[in-house]
């Protein structure tokens, strides 16, 4: 077959297409955005399947589950915290089971390159009692997609693939296979999907009964690999996902065979293989990018008698943060390679910042001016480019928790008397999770001011479409019950600064709910349109 240059994200996407995908859903989030972006491109070329940006991850998950219930192969993808948003249907879909193959792709962000936390999606795999895959390279990401669909259809369960930023955003050549046909529509077992307690109890015990089969699958999977070194019993390495590469990199220059090792790429853990490794060695070092998920299971509460288990929990590796080849090299007791010393010059940091001419900058300047002298003011903000408003020279916001939280948090603070309670949220984030809290705030006419930054796109992740922008957004606000007189629009431009400050001051002074929509298109999107 042919070779293609693909991002890790794109390798999963193409693997799914070639495995007979019928529909895919997602909400953008780094490092997962490129999965659906590439599916949108491929779908436009072939027209053979659907690829849809959903309103949020929960909606995306349920849309994909509907596809699976109809018998077709489906995919849902998101960043790790997106799985929190989708956790309700995720957990319950493990009980209903799947009909058509159902692949859930969750891209973790160890090191928090673009995230609020570095939670490890493998805990969700364990939590839901479903199978999981963790590729270590692009070819595996591509191949595992098809394997995951086969396993999903064999077990009748959703299957999760865990990616990490470093693989999602790395490019390499991938050998592709012949595409196979999609499934026909197929009615599934109806009762399984009605999670009344009687059905749910029956389904949950079936799911628990399937666990042994999943472990056997892991033990036989060619993606896991045990290599024993009979000459050196001092150390055995368990390495999962991308950490396996760092291990092989570190020992590639060694004279002689590497220490005994087990590569882990499927979950639940291949217990038999771990026992064989443990029987062979005195000390086990666990390398995994993310939480010490394997390490804690291997050690258990009482440890392994007569053995040492090392990794993130005993200080051999840092307790948090992304692994890299240097950290792993050190953990194996290998000396650093000779290199040039640092330049010696103090290097100024260059943090990310709002683009020159960004509409958010003008909104923040006006907001700061309007709030001048108000000691108690709190600006709750949200997830997007505008989170950069936390940095100088703006220093304009005081919170960033999760999608939509700015609106609900402002409501809570307002309820206990904080004035002014201000929320700043982007149009895409508002559509994702800001509508429901605003509905509640409108019903109560809570004394708070929501500023929606309507730049007509999902900017931070590269300009995906948005669901709540322009006139539609204004009509939506009215429909939610925001008083018409207190739905205001401003155009964030330097020339409008004074007028915008006044609008914000007026609405903050209003003793009830007000929403100010700051309308100006993202300049990156404007540029893109000009170019094309």
């Amino acid at each position: 077959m042919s070779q293609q240059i693909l991002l890790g994200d794109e390798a999963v996407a193409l693997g799914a297409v070639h495995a007979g995908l019928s529909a895919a859903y997602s909400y953008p989030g780094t490092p997962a955005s490129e999965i659906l972006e590439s599916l949108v491109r491929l779908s436009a070329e072939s027209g053979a399947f659907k690829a849809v940006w959903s309103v949020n991850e929960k909606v995306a998950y349920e849309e994909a589950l509907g596809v699976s219930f109809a018998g077709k192969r489906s995919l849902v993808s998101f960043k790790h915290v997106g799985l929190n948003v989708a956790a309700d249907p995720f957990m319950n879909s493990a009980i209903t089971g799947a009909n058509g193959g159902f692949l859930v792709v969750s891209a973790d962000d160890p090191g928090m390159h673009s995230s609020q936390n570095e939670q490890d999606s493998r805990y969700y795999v364990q939590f839901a009692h479903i199978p999981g895959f963790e590729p270590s390279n692009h070819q595996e990401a591509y191949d595992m997609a098809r394997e995951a669909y086969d396993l999903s259809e064999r077990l009748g369960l959703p299957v999760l693939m865990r990616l990490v930023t470093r693989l999602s955003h790395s490019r390499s050549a991938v050998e592709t296979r012949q595409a196979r046909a999609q499934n026909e529509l197929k009615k599934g077992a109806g009762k399984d999907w009605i999670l009344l307690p009687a059905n749910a109890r029956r389904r949950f015990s079936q799911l628990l009964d399937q666990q042994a089969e999943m472990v056997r699958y892991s033990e036989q999977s060619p993606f896991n690999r045990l290599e024993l070194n009979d000459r050196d019993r001092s150390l055995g390495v368990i390495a999962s996902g991308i950490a396996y590469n760092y291990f092989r990199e570190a020992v590639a220059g060694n004279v002689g065979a590497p220490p005994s090792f087990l590569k882990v790429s499927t979950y639940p853990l291949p217990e038999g293989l771990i026992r064989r490794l443990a029987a062979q060695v005195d000390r086990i070092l666990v390398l995994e990018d993310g939480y010490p998920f394997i390490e804690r299971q291997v050690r258990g509460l009482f440890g392994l008698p007569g053995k040492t288990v090392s990794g993130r929990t005993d200080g051999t590796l840092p307790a948090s943060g992304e692994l890299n080849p240097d950290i792993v090299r050190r953990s194996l007791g290998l000396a650093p390679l000779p290199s040039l010393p640092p330049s010696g010059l103090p290097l100024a940091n260059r943090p990310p910042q709002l683009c020159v001419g960004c509409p958010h900058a003008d909104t923040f300047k006006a907001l700061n001016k309007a709030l001048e002298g108000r000691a108690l003011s709190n600006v709750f903000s949200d997830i997007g480019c505008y989170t950069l408003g936390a940095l100088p020279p703006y220093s304009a916001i005081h919170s960033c928790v999760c999608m939509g939280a700015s609106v609900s948090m402002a409501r809570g603070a307002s309820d206990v008397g904080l004035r002014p309670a201000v929320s700043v949220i982007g149009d895409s984030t508002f559509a994702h999770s800001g509508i429901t809290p605003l509905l509640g705030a409108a019903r109560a006419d809570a004394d708070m001011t929501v500023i929606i930054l309507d730049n007509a796109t999902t900017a931070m992740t590269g300009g995906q479409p948005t669901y709540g922008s322009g006139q539609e957004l204004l009509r939506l606000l009215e429909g939610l019950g925001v008083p018409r007189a207190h739905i205001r629009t401003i155009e964030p431009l330097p020339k409008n600064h004074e007028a915008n400050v006044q609008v914000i001051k007026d609405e903050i002074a209003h003793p009830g709910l007000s929403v100010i929509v700051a309308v100006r298109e993202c300049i990156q999107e404007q540029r893109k349109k000009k170019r094309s």
Partner: protein
Amino acid sequence: MKQDIILAGVGGQGILSIAFVIDNAALADGLTFKQAEVHGMAQRGGAVQSHLRLSDGTIWSDLIPKGEADLILSVEPLEALRYMDHLRPDGVIVTSSTPYKNIPDYPDVAEVLEAVRRAPKSVIIDAEALAKEAGTAKAQNIVLLGAAAPVLMLKEQSLLATIDSLFRGRGLPILEANLKAFALGKKAALGS
């Protein structure tokens, strides 16, 4: 044989286009490669880098270990210094001399260039001037690719073919400017 390259710059300076050209040339030359890049928040005017590894054998890590980089190819001089401790003792720095000053505490440019020169092997190119000479200031990244071409383990033909495929769709004048930028960069590096 292998070659490990750190591409450095500021978000928006076009280092991913350099990576695109090298990746495709590597594929054409039958080499294996891995190229780790930065997406998302840091792309907004922040420091960005891409680890690009070429080999005629297996490549394990997507990231280059410290001490393994053979080349730092930087579109901005301060950014070239950020990754010096990744360079092998005999590694090469190829960098633009044009600073990108979007931070208040940008150090003295002469000191920055002096620090680059302290590396055992460095090539400093006035990429801005050469790109303008080629026809567009936007081609600074391709000037630097041309400057690095003599030390890359890739056929020049493969690099030029990819530049062709990358820019042909944007019109002949843009393609020609980029080909000229590549040639000017190469000439400047060989003459330095």
